[in-house]
């Protein structure tokens, strides 16, 4: 199953189990979304369970908040993560705070899905990875799946979660595990074990990381597309890296991270978002704090440059396996 199919399936499962789950967003109704993640939902569940919205991201999230406080469980789509900013106030000032500011009188169980990341020649407005703008906001959960199995299980968990969840879907992974070698054909999910997605209901718990590749030399902290870049870099550099797929950025599974870094003594962090104040900064700060006496080399961050995501030069911007492998070598040498 592709990641798109897995996400669609998660919607179906959640909507079937709970009549309070409603799905809307730009082009998600009749058409089923520009990435087709909601295809068939309107037909299957009716126009008032799945519908097209006006192009107003603040309105999408704002009405979803209203619905959630009524008692529904809206799962809404922002067409690209790059277009979430108009909804930022509703997410930060409202969704994230309603439970706290009302002392639990009102709650806000909403899921906000959005395709994230680049590598599709989308230029600066179809490529961004804004996760750090959400991890700074207490009250939100932030999830980044890296494969169909997790995507389905995490999305069901997100919809069923009683807190607002920002759910970032690496669009470069929709059809296969992309490792940054843009000049090679992508293996489809059908050939990958994590493309095997069980039918029906299951969840992958929010807040739990997973070790994707065991290793003893250095810990690589990755999420989304970067998980495959990290696997490729480990293989290509010949360095016995342990690759952790964080899956949930907030709440963070610090225990898994700390255990690994204490074991390897080295840590490289990789993300596609712009370096400065990216989520890698928080990871680096935590790792040095909790593993200081085990670290044998400075923690390196490999990330998108501090520029807008360029169009023609996207592979210059994208932190691919070559850059990451070089960092692994460097960290091993220092």
């Amino acid at each position: 199953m592709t990641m798109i199919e897995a996400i669609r399936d998660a919607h179906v499962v959640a909507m079937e189990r709970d009549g309070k789950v409603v799905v809307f967003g730009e082009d998600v109704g009749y058409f089923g979304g520009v990435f087709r993640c909601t295809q068939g939902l309107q037909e299957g569940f009716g126009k008032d369970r799945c519908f097209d919205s006006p192009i107003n991201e603040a309105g999408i999230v704002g009405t979803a908040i209203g619905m959630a406080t009524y008692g529904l469980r809206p799962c809404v789509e922002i067409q690209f993560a790059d277009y979430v900013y108009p909804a930022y106030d509703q997410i930060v000032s409202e969704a994230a705070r309603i439970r706290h500011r009302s002392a639990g009188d009102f709650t806000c169980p909403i899921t906000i899905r959005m395709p994230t990341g680049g590598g599709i020649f989308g230029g600066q407005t179809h490529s961004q990875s804004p996760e750090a703008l959400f991890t700074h906001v207490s009250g939100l959960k932030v999830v980044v799946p890296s494969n169909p199995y997790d995507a389905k299980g995490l999305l069901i968990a997100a919809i069923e979660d009683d807190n607002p969840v920002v759910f970032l879907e690496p669009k470069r992974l929709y059809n296969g595990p992309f490792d940054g070698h843009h000049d090679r054909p992508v293996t489809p999910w059908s050939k990958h074990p994590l493309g095997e997605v069980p039918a029906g209901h299951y969840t992958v718990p929010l807040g739990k990381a997973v070790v994707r590749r065991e290793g003893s030399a250095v810990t690589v902290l990755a999420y989304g597309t970067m998980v495959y870049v990290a696997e490729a870099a480990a293989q290509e550099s010949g360095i016995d890296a342990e690759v952790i797929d964080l899956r949930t950025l907030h709440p963070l599974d610090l225990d898994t991270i700390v255990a690994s870094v204490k074991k390897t003594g080295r840590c490289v962090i990789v993300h596609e978002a712009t370096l400065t104040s990216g989520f890698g900064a928080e990871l680096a700060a935590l790792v040095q704090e909790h593993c200081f006496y085990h670290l044998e080399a400075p923690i390196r961050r490999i990330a998108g440059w501090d520029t807008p995501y360029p169009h023609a030069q996207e592979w210059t911007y994208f932190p691919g396996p070559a850059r990451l492998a070089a960092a692994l070598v460097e960290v091993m040498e220092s």
Partner: protein
Amino acid sequence: MADTVPLRLNVPEPEVRPGGKPDFSRVSIPKAGSVDRPPVDVAPEAIRDMAWSIIRVMNRKGEAVGPWAGTLTPEETLSGLRDMMRVRAFDKRMLMAQRQGKTSFYMQCLGEEAIACAFRKAMSDGDMNFPTYRQQGLLIAGGYPMVDMMNQIFSNTKDPIKGRQLPVMYSSKAHGFFTISGNLATQFVQAVGWAMASAISRDTRIAAAWIGDGSTAESDFHAGLVFASTYKAPVVLNIVNNQWAISTFQGIARGGSGTFAARGHGFGIPSLRVDGNDYLAVHAVAKWAIERARSNLGPVLIEYVTYRAAAHSTSDDPSAYRPKEESDAWPLGDPVERLKNHLVAIGAWSPERHAQAEAEIDAEVLAAQKQAEANGTLHSGPKASPRDIFEDVYDVMPPNLRRQRQEAGF
């Protein structure tokens, strides 16, 4: 282009500033009873003119006249007067409490009491308000205990929201009162979402959105209108035009449209304008709008014409930007006085009974305050627990917060 005259920026200004003589002659005020009452299923276009008029019920003599009169019995009207008096007494006490340092901040609704109080009486239990900080009348007229409001204002041990929020930012789901946000206008579109949820759920409950004149400029106002218009959400969209947004007069938000009610016309939403200081008119219009919404005929927009008689908040001194006398010059008078006069005119009330009611209500408010103060005030007595700030960020406390709570020593 050589002969084109240079452009100029138009910066709207109020007619008078401090030192000037208040002048409301531009505010044209239709006679009480002169505006038609259309059927609730009227087409929006058919009542366009109502966005430039003002629905009024009480005339100068205190009589209730015209097609909008008669939605309340004398007893209900009297109870409305008491609600407004309670709100006013409450505000007065809390303002004093703020001056005495018992709380950090307070916001009155002086002069605007009729709006929330009368609207609340037109609603049904289960309906939901998405208020701003100036609709304490919704709670008081809805029977929410004053002492709980005070507990919130004093951030004390019984504060229902545990000291976390600025005073006056109440929350009560049970009383149909959505948790107030400090961020203007966000609630407007949330109200529309709540109403949509009610429709999706084949429920019969409606929502009411509230916003100030100045805040209609915010983008969430637009989002609210777009979604309400498209999905015909069962929501009443209330704009309280009290002429001021802190120091900024309503012309800056309104621009060239003449009224705020006109905003609804861009969306095919029926838009009414009502005398916000006329309890009977507010009730009648609210009832009409709520009935329309509940009949699945879609949203209604209401502009309440009123005047913010007090300072914006305890942090504000309006004498820096408007004449002190402006409030007295406001042509729609005082809502409490007007309803009192009406009740006297119809023989249901007297100045003596009014004075007596005032005393009773003062005592009631004072008693509530005593009770609340026993639970502590901001700077003295028992306190909201610091440990509590780590709760309710999530349903279950995540590890980072557990670590931090421990680090904080709790």
